[in-house]
């Protein structure tokens, strides 16, 4: 990116020293924020554990293999997080379920970033009647409880093959793009009359090229920030779907749901609730912390 392209983002904050670009500044602010560092470390830890744990931990149990003789055991050396009512190892289930939850979060966020950015950029860039119609549509969807659409889309793909969780990703991503569209639109409106856009247009660049090469690179900050905050929202939404019996087969949401089911005052298999909830909460908390810190780092105006 040339210095000219980066100018609008850099004009927000006065440079700390000569030769330090806006991204380097943002990075410095981020690294100085203890909450961001804690959040990012925890996130990395959980992410690595879930992504690699099942493959590198020796003797990693199969999350689906049942063992009736060994059911409802508390945490022990053999079963770190205990076992469930079918004797399945909870440590294995939490890690493998985590893979699914994180994947749902990432893929759905990717879908939402894609739709939201495109929608917001087109509405903001062309403005006028088109902008009004597009944003009215967004307003309307905002007003509609989105769970309706999620559930209906989920049903559409409900087939004999329950292992296929792609539709859930799509459904969750397809309802989470509204805020993204609003944010990107706001940014694009602020940028579309800047001199460098005018210069590109004078040079004969097409609208698609102006949006893709000149405008969107200047919106990366807010997009990244909001995407970071979308991941936890999606994971939470998936857990609600799991609770209603519509989620994917094995995820943190499903495990937490199973854990909640055994809280009945008579039999307290606390480990079934504690460990999945802990992983879920730590992940969501870290993502929220990192997202907030990123927002402060990219846009110093909001920092106090």
């Amino acid at each position: 990116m040339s210095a000219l392209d980066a100018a609008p983002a850099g004009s927000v904050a006065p440079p700390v020293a000569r030769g330090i670009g806006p991204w380097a500044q943002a990075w410095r602010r981020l690294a100085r924020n203890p909450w961001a560092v804690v959040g990012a470390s925890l996130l990395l830890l959980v992410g690595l554990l879930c992504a690699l744990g099942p493959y590198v931990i020796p003797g990693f149990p199969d999350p689906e293999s049942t063992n009736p003789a060994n059911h409802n055991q508390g945490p022990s050396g053999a079963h770190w997080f205990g076992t469930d009512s079918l004797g399945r190892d909870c440590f294995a289930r939490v890690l493998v379920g985590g893979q699914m939850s994180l994947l749902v979060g990432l893929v759905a966020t990717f879908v939402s970033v894609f739709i939201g950015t495109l929608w917001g950029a087109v509405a903001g860039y062309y403005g006028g009647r088109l902008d009004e119609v597009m944003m009215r549509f967004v307003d309307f969807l905002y007003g509609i409880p989105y769970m309706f659409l999620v559930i209906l889309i989920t049903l559409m793909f409900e087939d004999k093959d329950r292992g296929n969780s792609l539709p859930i990703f799509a459904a969750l991503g397809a309802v989470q793009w509204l805020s993204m569209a609003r944010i990107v639109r706001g940014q694009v409106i602020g940028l579309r009359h800047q001199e460098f856009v005018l210069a590109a247009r004078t040079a004969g660049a097409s609208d698609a090229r102006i949006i893709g090469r000149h405008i969107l690179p200047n919106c990366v900050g807010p997009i990244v920030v909001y995407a970071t905050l979308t991941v936890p929202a999606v994971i939470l939404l998936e857990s609600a779907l799991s609770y209603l019996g519509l989620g994917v087969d094995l995820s943190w949401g499903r495990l937490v749901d199973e854990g909640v089911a055994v809280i009945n005052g008579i039999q307290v298999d606390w480990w079934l609730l504690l460990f999945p909830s802990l992983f879920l909460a730590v992940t969501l908390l870290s993502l929220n912390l990192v997202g907030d810190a990123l927002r402060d780092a990219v846009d110093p105006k909001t920092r106090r």
Partner: protein
Amino acid sequence: MRGLPVLRVLGGLALGFLAFLLARSGLGVPLALVLGAVVGAAGARFLPRMALSRVLWAIPLFLLLLFVAIQLMFLAPGDPFASEKNTSAAVREEQGKKYGTLDRSFVGGAVFFRRYVENLVADGYMGPAIKVEGRSVTELLLPALPVSLTLGLLSLVIATALGMTLGIRAGLKPGSLADGLGMGVSMIGVSLPSFVIGALLILVFSLKLGWLPVAGWGGFRHLILPAITLALPYAAYIARLARSGTIEVMTQDFVRTARAKGLAESEVVMKHAFKGAIVPVVSYLGPAAAQIMTGSFVVETLFGIPGMGQYFVKGAVNRDYYVVLGTMLLYSGFVILFNLLVDLAYAQLDPRVRERG
């Protein structure tokens, strides 16, 4: 005023028509007509332009939502009669014809949509509940509606009150202990699924302490835990909004002036900080209402509350098309109504919106 205020007239007509539709089944046609005319005229006269245009847009978008929902349902595999055993193909065809669900192509969906809208506008009829023999959707949902509304509104009130209190306290002294504690709690509030919070509340207050009922629906005592469970995540978010609003307003010059002229700190807070905090919160209340309503699916299931959420989820799983559409219409209708009220409140709070209106 220049020219004919087209937007006002059309918006008033749309509003009056919607009021008429809502009131008809309860009041009968003549009374509902009067009510619709009064509401429409009052709306055209007093509502801000923004709100009127929202009402006007709501009608085509509402129809679009219905259409999309019907097409989605028809695309989903399975039909309302698939789970009933011992139904021959002939019987199923008969039933499919009876309920208009036989032709599941795009065109079939369009025909279904037309019939549904015609019935709705002509008689306020929302169709039969396919899975509950001999009952209409209206009969099924009418007792559940006040339950869901009570729960939703109470949660919204709790979320707003709690969130504003925490947020303003935190925003007045950013970086203080109260700020850190409040924001820490709200961080945790948005990081746990509501059914976990609810289950823990049940465990402590119902099972261990025995103060409140575990589940069910009856008096006010049954409402407390579900309403709090539903409210907490939104309280957390509102607290964050109120906090940044308060911080923003407290650095303004007029706050310094107010202090300089010797206003007591409590009055500065009540007169200025409160206003700064409430504006972003009010604009969030519309989306919050929509989400609290659907958040209640989970909470209603957890606490065994006979609200509309269970009908939607059950209806969707059983492919009880009319029940699904009915719950969607009722929920969305109330959310739109609530958004109108929020627009009005917002116009009162923000002079820029008021003057444009």
